[in-house]
């Protein structure tokens, strides 16, 4: 039976096509075709707008990456306790964590985002206490809602992953740690957590790629990420394809970057091919 982890590996892009033995005769032909298409794309499509927007695009990429890294880190911090209580917590917490994961994983992120921004966000100003509070300048902005929604979503998906990872750490290794007199916290910090994270790395890789692909949704609540910049270009230039193709290319590169970064981390602790 395939585990949950391998399912995600199969569905998310976690590996790049390998370069070994890349140059085969048919590949040269394919590359020639690809080059021809690329040439046509450059020659026959309109790219004159590109220099005007280069700065804004770079800024958008920055926002996208910031959203990605920020929400992944925050989400992961939440995911650890969510995963842990499901493995070792008392039953009320276990139930709570389980319910949280089910609800968040069972509804579209877009909806959650709008619920937070348009729903919750429109309730806040009705309470003068909130309106007068020091938090108000923050709550007026759109990005906190985007960060919150993406973080919650990542935490829910990752909580499930971490649950599996925590449960999958061999009991013997934890027992060994206890047998050498480590306190419970030390066992968790030195053995259980790092070992679980290590186990979960390939899955985390996939989930992070999926998270990257979720970031453009924040554009629908007025956060200016790279997707929003490209939308804007489309609206101003009335070009249908060119900006979208550029956007696809940007995300391809970002994904490749992520996959390479994870490969670096995964290779730090080698595992025997399983």
């Amino acid at each position, binding site marked *: *039976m*395939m585990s*949950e982890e*391998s*399912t*995600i590996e*199969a*569905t*998310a*892009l976690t590996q*790049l*096509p390998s370069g070994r033995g890349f140059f*085969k005769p*048919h*590949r040269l*032909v*394919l590359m020639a075709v690809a080059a021809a298409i690329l040439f046509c794309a450059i020659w026959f499509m309109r790219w004159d707008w590109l220099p005007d927007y280069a700065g804004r695009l770079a800024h958008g990429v920055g926002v996208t990456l910031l959203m990605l890294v920020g929400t992944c880190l925050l989400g992961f911090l939440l995911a650890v306790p969510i995963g842990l209580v499901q493995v070792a917590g008392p039953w009320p917490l276990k139930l709570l964590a389980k319910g949280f994961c*089910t*609800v968040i*994983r*069972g*509804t*579209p*992120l*877009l*909806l*959650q985002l*709008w*619920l937070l921004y*348009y*729903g*919750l966000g*429109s*309730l806040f*100003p*009705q*309470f003068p206490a909130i309106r007068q509070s020091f938090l108000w300048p923050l709550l007026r902005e759109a990005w906190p809602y985007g960060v919150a929604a993406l973080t919650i979503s990542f935490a829910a998906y990752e909580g499930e992953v971490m649950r599996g990872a925590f449960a999958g750490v061999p009991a013997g290794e934890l027992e060994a740690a206890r047998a050498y007199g480590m306190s419970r916290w030390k066992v968790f910090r030195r053995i259980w957590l790092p070992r679980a994270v290590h186990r979960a790395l390939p899955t985390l890789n996939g989930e992070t*790629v999926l998270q*990257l*692909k*979720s*970031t*453009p*949704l924040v554009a*629908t609540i007025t956060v200016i990420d790279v*997707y929003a910049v490209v939308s804007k270009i489309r609206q101003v230039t009335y070009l*249908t*394809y060119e900006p*979208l*193709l550029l*956007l*696809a290319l940007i*995300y*391809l590169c970002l*994904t*490749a970057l992520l996959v390479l970064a994870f490969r670096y981390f995964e290779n730090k602790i080698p595992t025997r091919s399983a």
Partner: protein
Amino acid sequence: MAADPASLIDWSLLAFDPPGWGAVLLAGLMNSIKIAIGGYSLGLVLGTGGAFGKLYGGPVTKDLLEVYTTVVRAVPELVLILLLYYAGTDLLNRLAAAAGYGTVDISGLAAGIFVIGVVQGAYATEVMRGAIRAVPPGQIEAARAFGMPPLLILWRVTFPAMLPHALPGLSNLWLIATKDTALLAVVGFSELTLVTRQAAGSTKAYMLFFCAAGALYLALTLVSNLVIRLIELRARRGWVSTR
């Protein structure tokens, strides 16, 4: 402006008859389900073809499929949906025009199914490929030794034997498909998310409608989970339980 909790929830907005929006939400849900089912089925077909192409196809087929699965899995669904929605239908129209059919009328439903299907196809390709590779080669060899022709082997042995391996991945994909329909809101297709937004915008009862839509999606997921469990139980007959 003081908040009056009681006035925050006006349940009559969810009534089935206008001016209640209940019927609209349900119609949106039906549209979402239709697209999810259509897109998922198309994805399965593409995925099956893709998996066999990747495993047994010629070098060019393999490379093209690799490009397909890599690109689709690396680019956000939202972007793909926009690209495919506009470019795909535009291309189809131009092809039809070139072939002398004039413009073909592509309904939003068909376009939505097409878009979700292409996206799902890439994922399904990978899931099925892994599942087919998990079928012990001896099973297929035995079928060949009994003189079964390739298509019969595919139908009678490879397909049912890979199913238990593919099911977890495929169920995941189904859940993704149901939720990806929400993205079609950005192209103005009136599925559940968009009608929710229209209802919320018209009535200003944002919380109520978003929660209602969330509940509908959640119900869809939970019912799906139930059905998936039944299917798995049936497909895994003959396998020694590992759980």
